[in-house]
Structures are given as structure tokens and as C-alpha cells.
């Protein structure tokens, strides 16, 4: 065991994948940084990703495998998709997932649908990484978490991890998976450290984690919300409320059985989700429970989601926007008392 930040976990998985399979290439903007710059020292990695995630990879793997590109997201994702169906195993970076709107056709109508449209003949081992999440003042165009949109897209898988351990294992699995995967990295987690095995490992897609077991209420939460939910669970334990935290880790495939079993055992459900106030991931989980665990439900399902607004810039507004610990605790109390 060693300790890794979320950022380091992702970097480790990329390195694991690249060392073990020469078909894995990275494609994106400033993964290295410095191409076409004026610094005469051509061994410099000027960026290593905007958040430093890919630092060191170009030095180890070189130009052929760490491919810096112009600012041209449709071509980045499209190129990665085309490379994936023809034999590479590309990991494209969209930088901020907020930018999906300039490139989503290459996922939505292309990579996601190849296999189906072509009658099962295509394999598209593509990963698209991107940053999600509010909480750091990045404002309306750099703080979104559109994984609900990705989840609704048939043909892609979606990973939304909450810690370095999951991130590393799931990213390696995603890269080795033969289907397109959208891998979402919450920016507020990058510096968070947890224990992680020294050597390479994978975790299966579609299997939830249970960071806290409990009997009074099930809280389903992902990414930063999972961290908040764990904190709240620990606090409420003092008050005598026993909270089970289910972290699905991947929204597609979703560990439906894992969620339903937990709801069946507690009879109460709170879903915490940053993706959207409408048609979000929280609504998906709530609908799952309301259609398939209805008989075990003892109280209304509680959704802890942001308001139906863009993400505001100023800190007090942003904090009010986020489904943070206080709102989670209030929802748990409400559902336990109901």
C-alpha cells in the first residue's frame, strides 16, 4: 500500500495501461504542453495536463503515445473514435466535460452507436476523460457534471469515481474495456489522498462500493457527493442514525441490484447528485427504486440535487448551489423522521 491523491491515481492508471499495452495512446490538449513553444529545452513538459494529471507520461512514452493536439475537440474525440475502431486503444481528454457540446456527436452518434449500427461487428475501445464538478469557483462553463447525459446515451459506459483507489482501478479497467467509456474526474477531489496498492489492479465496472454500512437509510452518492455523504454518515452516527452509503462508482452500467438490496434492507432512500435538477442521475436512481423496490420503501425518496440553474461563480452562491453536507444531513433526517 501507498498513499495517492486522486490525480496520482489517475496518472498511475494511465501509466499502468500504457506500460502493459502499446496500443494505448493519449490524445488531448496540453497533455504534455510546450509543443511549438519557444523554450529551446525540448525535454520540458510545460503542462502535463491543465491539472497536472498527465505529468511525466510524455517523458516516459514520447510523442507517438502522448499526442498533443490543437484546440479542436470534435477532431480529438472523432480521431480517437476512428483510431479505436481501427485497432488502437486511445484515451482522449476533453479537459473539462463542460466542453462536450462541441464534440458530442462523435460520441453520441458515432462511437456509442458503431457496434449496434454495424450489427455487432465493431469494437470501440475508447476512453474519454474529462473534469467535472463545482466547488472551486470555476463558474458556469467549467463546473458542470453532465454524466446524466452520458448515462442516457446507450452504447457508452460512464465512470464517476470518488477516490484515488476507485479511480485508478476503474480507469485501468475502462481502458482495457472494449466499449467506449466516459470517465469523469471531479476537480474538487484531485488532491484528496487515500491508500492505494503499489502495483497495478483493476476494479469491475458496474459494481457499487459501500463505504459505510447502515440500517436506517440508504444514501446513494457519487464523486464529491460520496465524500460528503460519508462525512455526514459519520456525523449522524453520533446522533444514532445509521446511514448506509452506496457509491455506485459507475453510472452505466449501474449496480442496480446493489442499490436495490440496500434500499430493501433500509427502506429509505436519499440520492445525492450534482448532475442536474431535472432528468439527472438522482432521478434515474429514484425511478429505479420506485419501480423495483417500491414495496420496501417506508418513506418518500429524497433527492438532494442542485437548483435548476447554471453553476454560479461567487462562493456563497456556489455553496448554495451545491448539494453539500448540510443538505444531505437534512434530507436524511427528513426521511428518517417521515
Amino acid at each position, binding site marked *: 500500500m501507498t498513499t495517492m491523491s486522486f490525480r496520482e491515481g489517475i496518472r498511475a492508471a494511465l501509466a499502468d495501461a500504457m506500460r502493459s499495452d502499446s496500443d494505448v495512446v493519449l490524445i488531448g490538449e496540453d497533455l504534455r504542453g510546450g509543443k511549438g513553444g519557444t523554450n529551446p529545452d525540448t525535454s520540458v513538459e510545460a503542462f502535463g495536463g491543465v491539472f497536472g494529471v498527465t505529468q511525466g507520461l510524455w517523458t516516459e512514452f514520447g510523442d507517438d503515445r502522448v499526442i498533443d493536439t490543437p484546440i479542436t475537440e470534435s477532431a480529438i474525440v472523432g480521431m*480517437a473514435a476512428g483510431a479505436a475502431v481501427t485497432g488502437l486503444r486511445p484515451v482522449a481528454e476533453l479537459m473539462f466535460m463542460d466542453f462536450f457540446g462541441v464534440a458530442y456527436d462523435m460520441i453520441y452518434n458515432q462511437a456509442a452507436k458503431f457496434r449496434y449500427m454495424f450489427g455487432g461487428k465493431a469494437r470501440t475501445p475508447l476512453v474519454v476523460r474529462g473534469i467535472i464538478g463545482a466547488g472551486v469557483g470555476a463558474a458556469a462553463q467549467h463546473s458542470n457534471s453532465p454524466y446524466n447525459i452520458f448515462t442516457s446515451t446507450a452504447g457508452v459506459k460512464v465512470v464517476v469515481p470518488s477516490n484515488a483507489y476507485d479511480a485508478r482501478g476503474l480507469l485501468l479497467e475502462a481502458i482495457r474495456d472494449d466499449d467506449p467509456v466516459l470517465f469523469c474526474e471531479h476537480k474538487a477531489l484531485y488532491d484528496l489522498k487515500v491508500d492505494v496498492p503499489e502495483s497495478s489492479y483493476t476494479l469491475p465496472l458496474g459494481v457499487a462500493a459501500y463505504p459505510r454500512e447502515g440500517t436506517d437509510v440508504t444514501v446513494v452518492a457519487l464523486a464529491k457527493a460520496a465524500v460528503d455523504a460519508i462525512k455526514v454518515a459519520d456525523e449522524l452516527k453520533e446522533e444514532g442514525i445509521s446511514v448506509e452509503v452506496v457509491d455506485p462508482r459507475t453510472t452505466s452500467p449501474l449496480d442496480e441490484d446493489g442499490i436495490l438490496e440496500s434500499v430493501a434492507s433500509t427502506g429509505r432512500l436519499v440520492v445525492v447528485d450534482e448532475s442536474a435538477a431535472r432528468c439527472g442521475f438522482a432521478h434515474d436512481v429514484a425511478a429505479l427504486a420506485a419501480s423495483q423496490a417500491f414495496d420496501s420503501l417506508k418513506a418518500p425518496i429524497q433527492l438532494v440535487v442542485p437548483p435548476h440553474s447554471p453553476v454560479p461563480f461567487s462562493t456563497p452562491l456556489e455553496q448554495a448551489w451545491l448539494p453539500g453536507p448540510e443538505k444531505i444531513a437534512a434530507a436524511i433526517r427528513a426521511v428518517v423522521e417521515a
Partner: protein
Amino acid sequence: MELSTEQLLSAFRKMSEIRAFEDRLHEENTGGDIPGFIHLYAGEEAIAVGVCEHLTAADSIASTHRGHGHCIAKGCDITGMMLEIFGRKEGLCHGKGGSMHIADLAQGMLGANGIVGGGPPLTVGAALTAKYKGEGNVAVSFTGDGGSNQGLTFEAMNMAVVLQLPVLFVFENNGMGEATGSEFAVGANSIAERAGGFGLPAVSVDGSDFFAVHEAAGEAIERARSGGGPSVIEATCNRFYGHFEGDQTLYRTPEQLEEMKARTDPLTKFRERVDGRVDGAELDAIVEASRQLVDEAVATARAAALPDPSDVDTDVYVSY
């Protein structure tokens, strides 16, 4: 580059097959047995064939909504295509794709595409694979004059130049995008010139002339194979049917169409060019054989089984 008789016959056969396929689909379609949208390639055969005769199954192409010609030129099975267009279980895509999504990855055919401009970025990806694997393969995208105005297409060209990928962008300028003329929609003086500004060799050729296309494509593909990077070919042409089956083609007059067909039929032009070198009767036989092949494909398709409804959710993922 002088072509052998065998090469000439092979090219003519492909062009005839495409023509027979499209003419026949036009007839079939009036019967209303084919669901969805059908876009016919008749009139543009020299482009697909002039390019694809330079390619092997290890090379990739990406196509458009008007994809039948590219499929046939790239070696897709004609019966398999017809089964697909009729939505049959044994179609090339098991009935899941249809005319606008025919693909055959084993032949390096990455798919027709319902998104205008969808092909170029994908082709750039195939070219990245080719370059990375270093086996001298290339990738070609076919895009219309309409698709030449899509952001996707422009981005793909810049990316190919920056990474110096072995890719050829072919613009099939048939003068129309749906019912809108390229005269209007392409603000530039010329698609090729505009593309040239992106920093890659770009030429304009008569796309109804197989030999002109074949020569230009040969140069571009050879350059790509030998590490010389991307190129563009704009091939002017005409489509002999409407944008899709059902289009009343009010943007041109019947007289204009007739004149255009008389002047720019790629098959007629090919015959004229090979006159004296290839026996006309042999070409007639190819035309006849093509028709027969397509007739049989239609008969097979009509008689074939439909997919089972339970297959609706298979083939989405490799594993889930």
C-alpha cells in the same frame, strides 16, 4: 500511370455495379418496400471507384449518407448490402443499420454516416492508427460539398496537417447539398483552394472522369503511404437522382438533368476513353452481369428473413 486491361475492366465493373445497384434501388423504392431514407450515388461512380482502386482492405474509408457507391467500391458484398437495405437479419449489419449505416470493418469500410461531416474526424483516427502501426496504410474520407462547410471537416483537416497523418480528404462536389447549391453554401471561391489554405496539397478534378480521379488519388495516396502527409481532392460531379428518394428536384429543371446526364455520365465517359483498348462487347457483358447480380441480390433480400424482435438489445456493448 498506364492501367492494364484487367485494371480497366475491374474499375468498369465496380462502376457498373454501383450504377445497377442505384438504378435498381430507385425502382424498388417507388414500391415503398424500403423503410427510411435512401440517397443514391448514380452519376458519381468515378469518384468512389477512382479512389478505392488504389486501396486494399487494410486501408480505411469513411463515407456519407450517400454511401452505397463507396461500399461497393471498397469491396462490400452487394447481396449483404441489399439485405441490409431491406432490413433483413442476414444484412451486413443484421438489419440494425440500414442504408445510412452500412459498414464492413473487415473491408476497411468504416461506415456510411448519417451525420454530414461525420466521416472526416473518424478517418483522421484511422490514419492515426495507420501511422502508429507503420504498415503504410492510409485512410480516405468522402465528403460532399455540403459537408465541406461543417466544422467537423475543417477540424479534421487541420488535425491531419498538424499530425501529418496519411489521409486523403475527397470532396464530392455534386453542386448540391440537399436542395442548396454549393455555389451559394460554399462561401469560398473553391473547396480545394479553401482546403489548400489549411496547409495540405489540394487539387480539383473532373469527378465524372475516372482517369482524372484515379490519377489524382494515386498521387495523394502514394504520398500518404510514403509519409508525405494528408491531401485533398475536390471532385466535381453530378448526382443523377434527387437528394433522397422522394425529392422532386425543383432546384433544377428536367432539361438540365438530361443535359447533365448526357454530358457527365462517368460510365459513358469511361467507355469513350477506353474505346479501342477494350472490347465494347466485354463492357456490355459487365453491365449485364452487374444488373443480374443486383437483380439476384434484390430477389435474395425480398425472400430473406427479418430479424427477430428479441435481437433489439443485442450488439449494443461488447460486455455490459
